[in-house]
């Protein structure tokens, strides 16, 4: 009989506990279990020179103006490179939240470029630990004009870039990215360049404040041409975000702003002052929703 009372008392206590259970904790079982996708792994669609995993949201149009000045070590006469600016004007549009398309024109070697970007895998709290975006880009170099070199056909001016961008937002402040990259250029100066160039890109951003982040990017070429006068691309950037704008201030040994030029033809030696100051300015417009 004594056991009964113990059991009885225990059950009463238990039931009272159930009745007095915190209402808020009862809500947890009502929560939907949909995955929450990670956002803002990077502030911009570019880490420094190269692409980030970010694509534009559906119906968003991004207008990008990029400048790269001459090298800082070019002396005071050229105001440390400011007199030799190259510019790329570009547009990127989000067809869906995962699929983007872009076009641009870079005054460096007069290259037109177009690309498709697809965010295939999205990092989420309950799913994938990384976001993976594939990039297919095509470039058309229109310099020099054919009248100066009749062997330059349309096809010989083309190049293709294939990238898989893989990034993880490790914390709200730190994101890292790796980017296996393949650049094929139909015609190159084969005494110093390969038609096919593999490279591995590394990128990172660290948020200093909620509106400012520090970015770094490095592209290591695998097995470049033995007589290549070029360097691996390295860049540091500061992203400043204000509403619909992102200002990226950049220091890089690359002056080109498309994959072909910065991955395979980076001319500056970063550690000997061969650094180009530059910036990317983006403005985002929401066209449809």
């Amino acid at each position: 009989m004594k056991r009964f009372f113990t059991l009885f008392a225990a059950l009463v206590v238990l039931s009272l506990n159930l009745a007095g259970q915190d209402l808020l904790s009862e809500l947890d079982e009502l929560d939907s279990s949909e995955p929450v996708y990670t956002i803002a792994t990077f502030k911009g669609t570019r880490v420094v020179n190269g692409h980030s995993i970010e694509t534009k949201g559906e119906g968003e149009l991004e207008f990008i103006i990029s400048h790269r000045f001459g090298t800082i070590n070019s002396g005071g006469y050229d105001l440390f490179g400011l007199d030799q600016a190259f510019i790329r004007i570009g547009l990127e549009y989000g067809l869906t939240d995962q699929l983007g398309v872009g076009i641009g024109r870079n005054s460096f070697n007069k290259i037109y470029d177009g690309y498709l970007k697809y965010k295939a895998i999205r990092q989420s709290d309950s799913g994938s630990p990384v976001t993976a975006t594939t990039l297919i880009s095509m470039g058309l170099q229109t310099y020099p004009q054919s009248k100066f070199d009749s062997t330059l056909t349309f096809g010989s001016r083309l190049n293709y870039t294939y990238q898989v961008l893989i990034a993880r937002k490790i914390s709200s402040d730190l994101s890292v990215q790796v980017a296996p990259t393949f650049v094929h250029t139909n015609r190159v100066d084969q005494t110093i360049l390969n038609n096919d160039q593999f490279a591995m890109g590394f990128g990172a951003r660290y948020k200093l404040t909620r509106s400012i982040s520090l970015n770094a990017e490095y592209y290591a070429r695998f097995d470049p041409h033995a007589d290549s006068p070029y360097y691996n691309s390295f860049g540091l950037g500061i992203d400043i975000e204000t509403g619909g704008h992102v200002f990226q201030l950049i220091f890089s040994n690359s002056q080109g702003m498309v994959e072909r030029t910065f991955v395979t033809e980076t001319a500056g030696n970063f550690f000997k002052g061969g650094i180009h100051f530059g910036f990317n300015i983006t403005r985002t417009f929401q066209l449809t929703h």
Partner: protein
Amino acid sequence: MKIYLKTGLVILVLCIATSLQAQKYVSEKSNVTFYSYAPLEDITAKSKKAVGIIDVDAEKIAFSIPIRSFDFEKSLMQEHFNEKYMESDKYPKSTFQAVLIDFNARKKGVQNVTAKGKLTIHGITQNVEIPGKIEMLGNGKIQITSTFMVKLVDYDITVPQIVFQNIAEEIEVKVDFTLSKKK
């Protein structure tokens, strides 16, 4: 015989336990909208992912909403809302827990009530009194609606000078819940 007695007692206790469980209603549909009216821009965001519960006997309510579920017209704005203002990776939910004042579970029709309790936004909890309307719909359902203001400064949400003209200092929040008997 002893076994029957034991079983009987256990059943009795379980019955008591069940009756001690108060009658609760949980949300089956919800609409939460907020409005920011500023000189340069009016901003609206909506969520249908809020959940709520009401204990009509204890006259208590609780709500919870995932911050990431708010949908904006501009996706960049939605990103900034989460990244820069609400820091939703650190504070994924806003919650409200309150006792109801002037509430009568047996009264039909719309009644004006006040919910007195704790509102948590951006990781900061404030004691608030929120007016609202409760309607016992009769078909085992309850509707709760409310409109109230949230001052950003109370929840440590700072708006940079540069977008001062775009974001209001006080946000209007509208909630509309339909709850049904918890099974």
